[in-house]
């Protein structure tokens, strides 16, 4: 079974500053997919960014970028120029390749943005 660990229950960041959320995972697979989801108070999970393990280049989506370290099994999320709307719970998730469909989630990190 895959284990996804988010070691930071809460993080606080000043508006316009940068915050980095950590995620580590355990797998014996060589190919897999990693995701970061955002869950605002509305409860709806929103996909922020995704990374395919076979790609060495780190994924970026506007102000969101990842640092994918495959050997270390680490997948951190960096939020640059933080905005008040970034306040939410962030979940790291793992999925095996091909036809596997189950997402394994970490426990989440609550991000607070200070004005």
């Amino acid at each position: 079974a895959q284990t996804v660990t988010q070691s930071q229950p809460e993080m606080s960041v000043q508006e316009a500053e940068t915050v980095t959320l950590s995620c580590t995972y355990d797998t014996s697979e060589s190919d897999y997919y990693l995701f970061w989801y955002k869950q605002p108070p509305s409860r709806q999970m929103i996909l922020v960014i995704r990374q395919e393990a076979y790609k060495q280049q780190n994924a970026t989506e506007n102000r969101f970028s990842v640092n994918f370290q495959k050997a270390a099994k680490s997948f951190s999320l960096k939020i640059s120029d933080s905005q008040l709307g970034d306040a939410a719970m962030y979940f790291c998730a793992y999925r095996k390749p091909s036809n596997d469909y189950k997402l394994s989630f970490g426990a989440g990190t609550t991000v607070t943005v200070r004005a």
Partner: protein
Amino acid sequence: GAGVSQSPSNKVTEKGKDVELRCDPISGHTALYWYRQSLGQGLEFLIYFQGNSAPDKSGLPSDRFSAERTGGSVSTLTIQRTQQEDSAVYLCASSLNAGGTSEAFFGQGTRLTVV
């Protein structure tokens, strides 16, 4: 519809009663998932439907839980003889197909409280 729709948004029920939670996926999405999110926890996989294939029920925590998907569209998650430990947010997601980087779109969930 424009997104995954879940009803009811909130449900309070007495211990021992049965409840039904409904999920209406995005039109055309063949894959449908149910997850459970307990307070302060990540998401726990419950069940998966793909087209007309037999569902993967491996995540259902007990035989009090069941789900069906009628006509490849709407899904209902039923919890019989509810217990207090069933209190959680139940999230439904759908995707165009399964696996890979296919994005799972989530509904806003049903918050179930068993008193």
